[in-house]
């Protein structure tokens, strides 16, 4: 069994509204799994089902090979998108309370909190009230509380919102480190660049249905268009451009360059491989830039959502 979490044909209705329709996902152990989808697609419902906040109408969820049961909440750390803490409670007390709710003993929770507070350099916040902290600062506390009990499965819903770039990076590094230490992460976000950076696997939910699922590299391969970004230096710009256009399908390209005179996206429609293209180009001009256009997660997201 290599999957930490398996959701099998999960459906959920709210009244007449079908929030999830027969959605199955498998989250491999030790991976960062991106759960993507437009607003209102049903991501949060799925996450709430995994957290046993709501029950699925049909289908089942397994954690580590066992059907979900109440004890499992100790193995899950959940950072909801709608986050909050008791405003008038002191940071330390609150963190201790929430850690104890997750099943840690008080001394153990204290020890771990001290470690994390030192690590994130917020030791002097212990006696502050949450309402005295800024939003980003409160988020840090929330992050600590989520990971403190060392759960096998971490669920982050938009973990970077509210953070400045420095702190966002800090949290990103922490997530990666947790993954390296053996945790499995489900990561829900609208920020495609962080999906690109972090996720090994993704699933895309759209209008209550799963429309895409798999390893990010596999999906990218699936969406590759055999297009190459090309930058050439030549004196005869027009003749070279014309010569290429006669042979290949050409699209305009924009990329930063110093002195490339010809900038094109060239799409290969079965006319050999990239080496053949490169040979052709070399015969025409000096090649400065040659790179395959890899579909970004952003492109895949938009394309998939539009097509469905």
């Amino acid at each position, binding site marked *: 069994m290599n999957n930490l979490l398996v959701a099998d044909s999960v459906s959920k209705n*709210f*009244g007449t509204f079908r929030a999830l329709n027969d959605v199955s996902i498998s989250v491999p152990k030790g991976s960062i799994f991106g759960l993507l989808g437009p607003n209102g697609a049903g991501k949060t419902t799925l996450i*709430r089902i995994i*957290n*046993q*906040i*709501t029950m699925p109408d049909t289908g089942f969820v397994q954690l580590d090979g066992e059907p979900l049961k*109440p*004890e499992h*909440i*100790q193995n*899950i750390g*959940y950072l*909801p998108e*709608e*986050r*909050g*803490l*008791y*405003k*008038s*409670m002191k940071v330390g007390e609150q963190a201790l*309370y*929430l850690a*104890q*709710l*997750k*099943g840690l003993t008080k001394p153990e929770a204290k020890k771990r909190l001290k470690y994390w507070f030192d690590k994130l350099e917020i030791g002097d916040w212990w006696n502050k009230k949450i309402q005295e902290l800024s939003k980003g600062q409160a988020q840090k506390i*929330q992050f600590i*509380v989520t990971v403190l009990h060392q759960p096998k499965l971490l669920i982050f819903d938009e973990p970077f919102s509210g953070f400045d770039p420095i702190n966002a990076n800090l949290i990103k590094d922490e997530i990666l480190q947790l993954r390296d230490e053996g945790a499995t992460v489900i990561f829900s976000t609208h920020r495609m660049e962080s999906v690109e950076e972090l996720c090994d696997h993704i699933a895309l939910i759209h209008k209550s249905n799963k429309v895409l699922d798999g390893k990010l590299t596999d999906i990218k391969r699936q969406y590759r268009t055999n297009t190459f970004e090309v930058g050439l230096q030549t004196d005869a710009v027009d003749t070279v451009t014309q010569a290429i256009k006669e042979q290949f399908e050409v699209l305009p390209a924009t990329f930063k360059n110093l002195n490339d005179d010809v900038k094109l996206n060239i799409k290969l429609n079965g006319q050999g491989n990239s080496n053949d293209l490169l040979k052709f180009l070399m015969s025409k001009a000096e090649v400065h830039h040659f790179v395959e256009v890899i579909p970004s997660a952003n492109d895949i997201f938009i394309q998939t959502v539009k097509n469905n």
Partner: protein
Amino acid sequence: MNHLPLIIKREYLTKIKNKSFIIMTFVSPLIMVALIAVVAYLSQLNNDKERHISVLDETGIMADVFVDTEHTKYNVLTNTSLETAKELVKAKEEYGLLHIQNALDDQDMITAVKFYSDESPSLSIMSSLEQKIEKKLTDSKLQNNGVDIEKIKASKTNITIAQETFTGEKTSKIDSYLKLAFGGAAGYLLFMFIIIYGNMIMRSVIEEKTSRIIEIIISSVKPIQLMLGKIIGTSLAGITQFAIWVILGSILIFVLSTIFGVNIAEMQTPQQEMLDQAMQNPEIANEVQGAIQSFFNLPLANLVVAFMFFFIGGYLLYSSLYAAVGAAVDNETDTQQFMLPIIMPLVLAVYVGIFTVIEDPHGTVSTVFSFIPFTSPVVMLMRIPFGVPIWQQVLSFVILATTFVLTVWFAAKIYRVGILMYGKKPSYKELYKWIKY
């Protein structure tokens, strides 16, 4: 994993440490005592004033009726005309002038007595004057008709029916008053407790929703545990506050009465004077003794135990309803529409208690209402002093406890769904749907 103690502890400590809670706890008794002191002082101020009333008695038989009291002095005028008397009273700035015309025909006396004053005189003074004149006239009429007043006085009889149950327990009317007073006090206390601390629970549930922490909490504990923890924690805080109030209040009153001991003794309202007089009357003193006697005749052990059970049960039941309302709404302004159905049964219980239980403590209405869980805490507590079989008490409490468990379950259900429904104003129809989820 049982987190209940943890949740109770947190709820309790947060409430206790809350600044406004602390301030209210320590300032309220001060305000109360200050209020009592002010009222007492004001009434004393009023009583200290001496009133002078001039009486122009043309009949010549009334003079001995007007005996000076501590606060009212009479000045009987003779041989003056009404006009001069008026001038005189005005000049001396007296309270007023009572003019009794000499009407030979006693029938005319009804219109023959007049009171002149700057402002309209107080009701109590008027009726006391009327009483005095009436009595004198009645006596003189009786005498004129040849009736011996002494004989009438001698033949006056007072009857108090002594009551006794078949088992030999002596009871009296005062008994009933006492029972009523006990039931009323218990009912009122419960009412106050529910309204003050029920609201507190509701607010604390709403707080969790507005601060959005609920999703984190709910992914760690079962909603029903959270609900129970909140209700118990807040109740404990309420009991703490209440205990502090009682203790502080008694200390303050004790301190005040030692410092101003003499003053308080003098702060006698007219009622107290009457009471003092009454105490000197052997018959009434007897009755007071009877009352003390009947207090000990009450089923005290039963009362205390029943009070604890029904008070706690009733309070918990209503607080779980408050919690459900808190779970259903996003902010306090939305709670109004749900408040009425909570308060209604409580008010109904008090009315049934006052109007029905007194008339017929074991009649159908009283009995039925003492089993309905939403009214039973109040009605049953009012019935118990009159003697209710233990099985009825137990049954009623079991119903109450079961309903409590059901309402907590119901509240938890609403809670679980309510967190998913931010920003949607709940209607009753919506709530029904939530329960079915």
